């Protein structure tokens, strides 16, 4: 298993929306290289026929009835907002629509 490079870390940091400083990039690249190499041990296990386990318990069909429950008030919803205006969350300009 190929290990993680500094460029990989920079790319992944972009995906994860963390603007790492150059120092952080250097440090993390070194640590993650080791860690990725270590966690890569999972590939030593022959598990081709083994189903992946995404839930610890075999539950299915947990749903709720389609009934309205009390909402927060707009004041509660916006109480933690860094900025709010016109009862909406104010956010910096958005670069592009998806």
């Amino acid at each position, binding site marked *: *298993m190929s290990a*993680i490079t500094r460029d*990989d*870390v920079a790319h*992944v*940091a972009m*995906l*994860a*929306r*963390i*603007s*790492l*400083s150059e120092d*952080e990039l250097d440090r*993390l690249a070194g*640590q*993650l290289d*080791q*860690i*990725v190499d*270590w*966690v*890569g*041990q*999972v*590939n*030593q*296990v022959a*598990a081709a026929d*083994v*189903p*992946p*386990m*995404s*839930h*610890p*318990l075999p*539950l299915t069909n*947990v749903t*709720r009835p389609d009934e309205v429950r009390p909402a*927060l008030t707009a004041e*509660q*919803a916006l*109480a*933690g*907002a*860094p*900025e709010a205006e016109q009862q909406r*969350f104010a*956010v*910096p*300009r*958005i*670069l592009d629509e998806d």
Partner: protein
Amino acid sequence: MTETTTPAAGEELTRLTAAAMADRLTAGELTSEQLVHAHLDRIERLNPVLNAYLRVDAEGALATAREVDAARAGGEQLPRLAGVPVAVKDIACTEGLVTTAGSRMLAAWVPPYDATVVRRLREARMPILGKTNMDEFAMGSSTEHSAFGPTRNPWDLDRIPGGSGGGSSAAVAAYLAPLAIGSDTGGSIRQPAAVTGTVGAKPTYGGVSRYGVIALASSLDQIGPCARTVTDAALLHEVIGGHDPMDSTSIDAPVPPVLEAAGTRDLTGLRVGIVSELTGEGYQPDVQARFDEAVAQLREAGAEVVEVSCPHFRYALPAYYLILPSEASSNLARYDAMRYGLRVHPEGVDRPSAEQVMAASRDAGFGDEVKRRIILGTYALSAGYYEAYYGQAQKVRTLIARDFEAAFEQVDVLISPTAPTTAFRIGDKAEDPMAMYRNDIATIPANLAGVPGLSVPAGIAGDGLPVGVQLLAPATSDERMYAVGAALEARLAAQWGGSGSVLDRAPDVSALVDAFATTASSADREVTA
């Protein structure tokens, strides 16, 4: 009976078990207000050094206490633990009370809602003393990764109290609370219990609602009790356990009869399995010695002890350090400075975009360990790597669950040391994340498989620090680990004498704190986390 208590009498009150507090409240020998005051006094004296609590809610706790006292005086029938104070790990949302998850990102965030576990404490009418310190977003085994400074171990102020729930374990061990709520994703209740000489239980996955508990890794997280005795843990477990329609992964069945099980003394006919992969090499010799003695006690209590092998446990750590960061990278994506939390504008950027503000805020708001794991998890899920990392880890997880199934066909409970070593020194592993990760080697398999685990004190190592042993039971059979834990606790108590608590042999934390405070002015005692 008076509302004011002498300091010495207050100290005495804090030493009671939660069960004894409840009994004396019921008998009218004590008021909740006295109890809360006694704890608040002690917190005021010791917390500035221990840093077990991030926030103390004296007003709220006293208000609840007075309501309970009035209700009791009015002859109202109250829940068993009504009036017994409790501390809550700062990972559970408390309406109107700042909840940080140990992160700078949420340093000033006030939740508009209560976690289900908090609501249940309120319904049980337990005064909430405050919010306890933790590794940021529960990532760590030492509480050194808290954005608000490390918590100190009451046994030795230079040592870690375990993590991520070191605040809760230290609070309980230092008699700053009789009970506390913890969360356990890879050992964050059990390992702190072990290194502070307390009891901590991770229930079966889904046994306690996760609603309102800030998520680390959704498929691994579980909420549980921290206490000083097995019975106390069981009492709190029964308060917080049970089905919650707000958590899709909550088990829709009655809480296992853990309190009843905590009365067990005789283990005749019970089969206990020593997990051969979780002993021996890598374990501190006197940790291993205390473990062997505990096993001998179980034999004397009538248990049949055999060794069982769980061959895939050796891959548990790598699998865990793929699954946890992957889920965490997604769970922590919401901290983006748009709706709540820290917002930082990047330096030297005119009219920054939302994207730039997000990235700058996440760099400033998250600590190193959190960033490390987010990057690792994002990488493990990204195109081209998913199958080799996340996908393969989930397969290994299946194999680990199968190892448990096979083991539980042979035995009723499994046993291992809870942590490979006693509490290490603050700062010792700060620069070596992998060494920190290896601390969770014995606790992680239970989270991967969703089975319950309990850590109980097993004595003291040569370094004068406590050691814990871990009992593991099949999913939804939590009562089995409580039964074995209680029997072990009773036998060790008889052997140790006194109150029977290993905490009796801890140094006087008040003296340690006083000594620390007088020398703390020198910079060399300052610890870098």
